[in-house]
Every structure is written in structure tokens, then in C-alpha cells.
């Protein structure tokens, strides 16, 4: 299942997260008016697995990295039960930085899909999957800089909190008025401001707390087993 040529892998790595999945999410919201969200979430899940496999360079790494990613996903879901402050972004970023951008995307998308079994699935699920997936993916692309400079890591956490809010409010407007409207969008952004600040603050706090201990453990696993 990982016999891809490097060129096909490279194409998949770009096309899936930036073209296929966003168009699927928008299509689901606009054409089906959000009513097929379970199928859309499923499509995103399948695509994120393909993306994950495209990120695996050697065959024998695949199942190890998958189990480790599943563990990090479970950790993110576990952390979503903490009241008010959620470490989900921090865990996605840590996974992406150490295990690769594609693993980060999968952690983000699946932790939303799984935790929403407890917190409620809905037409917002595809947007949340895309949001957290992209946060992980981009962190993976920037992994070299983020590993070297802790201040940049914290800034990335804060920025991703704000960006997440921007993505989710597109959904709010689409659902509420059936089309996109800049006035309603800015109103939604304004009313979500306390949450945006909360996201940013909790991302910084958890990255500050987790980056060293969890980072060391992931680094150790990576060196010891070549994940």
C-alpha cells in the first residue's frame, strides 16, 4: 500500500491537503448544504490516510508510524475532556514536527472525528477536521524552524488559534445564511473573539508545557526505532 513513485507521492502531498480536501469541504457545505456531513467527514478521513501513506518513505515504517499517530490522536482526544483549555493543537503540532507533516494532518483530522463522537458530530465536523489538519500539516512543513526556535513555536500556536477561528466562522456564516456575506462574517468573527483569544492562549500554554517532555519522548522513539 505504499508502493508509490516519489513523483506521485510529491503530487499527492500537495494536491490532497490544499485542493482535494478543501474543495470537498466547501462542496459539502454549499452543494449539499451540510446535510451529507457524515459522508464528507468520511471522505476527508480516507484522503488523510492516503496523504499519510504518501508521507511514508519506507515500507516498514508505515505501521509503526501509524500506531504512534493513533496514540497521539488518542492523547488529543483524551485532552479534549480537559475543561476550557484544550491541548489538541499543541499535540497536533508536536506530532507534525517530529513525525512529519502528513502525520500531523492525520492526527488533527482524526482527533476531531473521534472526539466528536462524544462532543457531537455535525456539519461542523468537516471544517474542524480541515482546520486542525492544516494546523498540523503546516507545522510539519515548518518543523526545522519550529524545532530550533521555541519563541517561533509559541507564535505559531497563537497564530494557528486565530486561523482556526477564521476557518470555523466561514462555516458559521455558510450555515446561517446559506451563502457567504462579509458583514455576517465580520459579525461572527467579532462575537467569537473571546474564543479566539482562548484558543491562542491555551495553545501557547500547552506548547510551553508539552513541547519539551513530549518532544523528547517522540525524538527518542524516532531515534530508537526509526519511525
Amino acid at each position, binding site marked *: 500500500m505504499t508502493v508509490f513513485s516519489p513523483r506521485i507521492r510529491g503530487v499527492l502531498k500537495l494536491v490532497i491537503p490544499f485542493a482535494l480536501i478543501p474543495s470537498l469541504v466547501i462542496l459539502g457545505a454549499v452543494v449539499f448544504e451540510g446535510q451529507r456531513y457524515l459522508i464528507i467527514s468520511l471522505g476527508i*478521513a480516507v484522503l488523510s490516510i492516503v496523504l499519510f501513506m504518501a508521507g511514508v518513505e519506507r515500507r516498514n515504517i508505515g505501521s509503526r508510524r501509524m*500506531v504512534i499517530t493513533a496514540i497521539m*490522536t*488518542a492523547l488529543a482526544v483524551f485532552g479534549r475532556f480537559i475543561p476550557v483549555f484544550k491541548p489538541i493543537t499543541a499535540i497536533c503540532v508536536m506530532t507534525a514536527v517530529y513525525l512529519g507533516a502528513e502525520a500531523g494532518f492525520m492526527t488533527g483530522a482524526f482527533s476531531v472525528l473521534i472526539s466528536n463522537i462524544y462532543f457531537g458530530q455535525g456539519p461542523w465536523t468537516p471544517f474542524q477536521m480541515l482546520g486542525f489538519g492544516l494546523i498540523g500539516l503546516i507545522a510539519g512543513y515548518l518543523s526545522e524552524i519550529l524545532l530550533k526556535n521555541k519563541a517561533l513555536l509559541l507564535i505559531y500556536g497563537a497564530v494557528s488559534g486565530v486561523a482556526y477561528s477564521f476557518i470555523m466562522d466561514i462555516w458559521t456564516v455558510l450555515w446561517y445564511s446559506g451563502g457567504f456575506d462579509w458583514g455576517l462574517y465580520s459579525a461572527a468573527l467579532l462575537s467569537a473573539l473571546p474564543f479566539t483569544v482562548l484558543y491562542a492562549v491555551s495553545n501557547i500554554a500547552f506548547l510551553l508545557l508539552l513541547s519539551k*517532555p513530549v518532544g523528547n*519522548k517522540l525524538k527518542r522513539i524516532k531515534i530508537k526505532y526509526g519511525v
Partner: protein
Amino acid sequence: MKRFSDLNPIATAVYYMCVLGITMFSMQPLMLCISLVTSILTCVYDRSVKVKGHIFTAVLFLIAAVINPLFVHNGVTVLFYLNDNPFTLEALVYGIVAAGMIAAALYWLRSMSAALSSDKIMYIFGRFSPKIALIISMSLRYIGLFKERFRKIQNTQRALGLYDDGNLIDALRGRARVLSILITWTLENGIVTAESMEARGYMSGRRTSYAPYRIHMADISFIALSLALTAIAIIGLRNTQTVFYPDMRFELFTPWGIAGAAAFALLCLLPIIINIKEAVKWRLLISKA
């Protein structure tokens, strides 16, 4: 027929997709009224929403209803002016209908979350892609494992005298150490899991998935009934007219409109009807001797 919760998860999912589809697709007051009332009835009946949930939805309803007239100024009937912006009756009615849609959809989604537990969701996903089912089941397993191991490590630390609940800082420090051990243990253990999976032939062929549910006649007839009622409701929707801007015009009670509304009401009440029917049957069949 079986109880509603005993139906095949696919039948349950199809049912909720039908109800949610009509609720979120139609901006039509009559249908949304039916949907809102029946969704509240369903949630009260299956106890999936607590008092806090009702209050949250009510507040959300009020906010959503008022936001539209504050930002949209279409419509001919001006009620009053707010900072030189007209506050129109049409925008207010649209806001109330949209808020009703959101509240009804939230109630249905809560009811669905209660009806489709994690094993059922996994079964549905597993039918489409065994690989997704594997990752989901693995993650769900680790959540349970985390809880169990957390307790084990905590007990060990306590027995070693390393764990002190006395003051807040010590308690937090202890908790952080337990969490750290937990992550190390689970990650190391995950590698063993992966090796073991490969040794047993993972990645060597197509995956299949274990299915604990079977599709019975009752499930098929339930799906057919839901789809038929949905079709009638959609025809009914097509034969009504709902215009908000610039001037409100509702034609809801055409013959097809009434038939569609009746079909939709029946569809929405199906879970309650099935459960009550089964409860009555159970009463009648209990041996009186």
C-alpha cells in the same frame, strides 16, 4: 420491528440523515415548526439533552434570531430605526426561522449522538473503509488504556511514596510525572503493537472488518419507510412557496404541502412511535399466569 436503538446502525444513520436533511434544507416555517417540536419531544423522550442543554439552545435561539435583523436590512415593513439602519419585520421573521432551523438541527444532532454510540459509528465507517475503522478503534482503545494505566501508575507512585496530594503544587507535579510516564510507556508499547501487527501479516493483504450487526428485514423496511416519507415531504416542500424578501409571502397549506408536512411529522415521530409500540407489545406479552 425492533426497538429503535436495536436497529442496524446504517438504518439509524439513514434516518437521521433524512430528518436532518429536510430540517437544514428547507427554510420553510411549517416544516421547521414540526421539526423543532418533534426534536424536543424526541430529546426529552430519550433523555439525551440535560437541562443545561435546553438552556444553551434557548439562548442560542434568541441570539440567532436577533442577529439577522441587526445586520440585514432588506424588507419593506420597517419596525423602527437603529442608528439610522432600518430594523425590518421581514428580516426578523427570517432570523426567527433560521434560528428555529439551528435549534432543531442541534436537538436532532444531540439525539443522533446518543443513538449512534462509538461502536456503531465504527461499524458504519468500517463498512466503507476497514483502515479507518482500524485507526478509530485503535485510538478509542488507547483512550480506555490511558485511563487504566494512569490509575496504575498513580497507585505505584503512591506506594513508592512519590505521590503527594497534600498541596496543589505537589499534586500538579505528581500528576505531570504520571502523565510523562504514561506517554513514554504507551509510545514504547505502541512500537510493540506495530511489530506484532506486522508479524501477524498486517499490510500483506486486503483488510476486512468484523461486523457485529446484521441487516434484518426490520431494518430494510425501516429504511424504505424513512425514504418514502422523506420523498413525500420533499414533494410537499416543492409545492409550497416561502418568500421572505422584499415582501413576505407564504403558501404553506396547499394539498401537497399538507401531505408533505404530515409525512414529515410521521417521520420525525418514528423513533418514539416504534419504542412505544414495542413497550405496549412487551406489556401485552408478559405472562399473566
